[in-house]
C-alpha cells in the first residue's frame, strides 16, 4: 500500500508490480489510493441503494392491495435479520450521501482537489457521528431494547 500511496499524486509514474498484480488482479486496480477506494465505495453503495429502491417501490405498492397485505409486507422489515440489513442500507445511504457532498466540494471549491484526502477523513468522521446517533435507536427498535 505504501507504493500506491506514493504513486497516487503523479499520473505519469508507471504502476509498479504489486502483490495484487502478481495475483492477476492488477488489471482491476487503478492507482490504488484514497481516490480509487472512495470511488469504488461510491459505486458499490450507489448500485446497492438503487436495487433496494426498485424493491422498495414494489413493496410499498402492496398498500393498494389491502391494509392486511401491506402490514404483512411491513412485518418483514421488522424481522431482526432485516433490521440488520436496514442498518447496512442506512450506512450505505449515509456514506454515499456524504461522499457525494465531498465530490461536489472537490468540483466546486478551487482548493478541493488539493484537500480531497482531508475531505474524505471528514466524510468518515461525520459518517461515524451519524451512525452513532442512528444505530442505538434503530437496533433498539429492531431488538426491542427501547
Amino acid at each position, binding site marked *: 500500500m505504501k507504493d500506491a500511496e506514493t504513486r497516487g499524486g503523479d499520473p505519469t509514474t508507471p504502476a509498479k508490480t504489486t502483490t495484487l498484480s502478481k495475483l492477476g488482479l492488477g488489471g482491476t486496480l487503478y492507482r490504488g489510493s484514497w481516490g480509487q477506494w472512495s470511488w469504488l465505495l461510491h459505486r458499490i453503495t*450507489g*448500485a446497492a441503494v438503487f436495487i433496494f429502491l426498485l424493491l422498495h417501490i414494489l413493496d410499498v405498492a402492496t398498500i393498494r392491495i*389491502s391494509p*392486511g397485505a401491506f402490514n404483512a409486507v411491513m412485518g418483514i422489515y421488522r424481522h431482526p435479520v432485516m433490521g440488520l440489513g436496514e442498518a447496512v442500507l442506512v450506512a450505505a445511504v449515509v456514506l454515499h*450521501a456524504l461522499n457525494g457532498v465531498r465530490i461536489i466540494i472537490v468540483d466546486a471549491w478551487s482548493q478541493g482537489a488539493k484537500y480531497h484526502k482531508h475531505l474524505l477523513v471528514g466524510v468518515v468522521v461525520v459518517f461515524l457521528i451519524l451512525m452513532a446517533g*442512528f444505530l442505538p435507536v434503530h437496533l433498539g427498535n429492531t431488538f426491542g431494547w427501547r
Partner: protein
Amino acid sequence: MIPRRDPAKRAVVVPQRAELTSWVIMRVTGALLIVLVGGHLAINLMTGHGVHSVDFAFVSGKWASPFWQVWDLLLLLAGLGHGANGMRTVINDYVRGDRARLTWKLVMGVVVAILVALGSLVIFTHDPCPHGAPADLLPSFCG
C-alpha cells in the same frame, strides 16, 4: 481478467453537452436527495418505534397530507432519476458490445418508467379508509 483497450476507441460516443447535463442532474438531484432521504429516514426510522411503527395506518396518516405526497413523489422521481443515471454510467463502464449496452439501458429504462408510473399512482390514488377493512388496521380519522 478484463482485457485493456484504448478509451479513445470506445464505441460509445456521447455528445459533450449531454454529459454536462447529466453532470448537473446528478448534483441537483443528489443535493435534493440528501434532504428528501434524510427526512424520510428520520420520520420513518427514528420517530416512535421506528420501523415497528410503519404500517397501513402510519402511511395513510402521512399521505393524508399533500406535503408528504409531494415529498414522496419528489423522492420517487429524484431517487429513480439519480439512480438510473448512475446505473447508466455503470453500464457504459462494464457492459461490452454496443447491442448489449443498448439492451441493458432499454431494460433499465422500461423498469424505471414502470416504477415511476406505479409509484405515482400508489401515492395519489391511495384510499386510507377502504370499505370493509378491519377498523383496527385503519388510521384513526376513518371513524
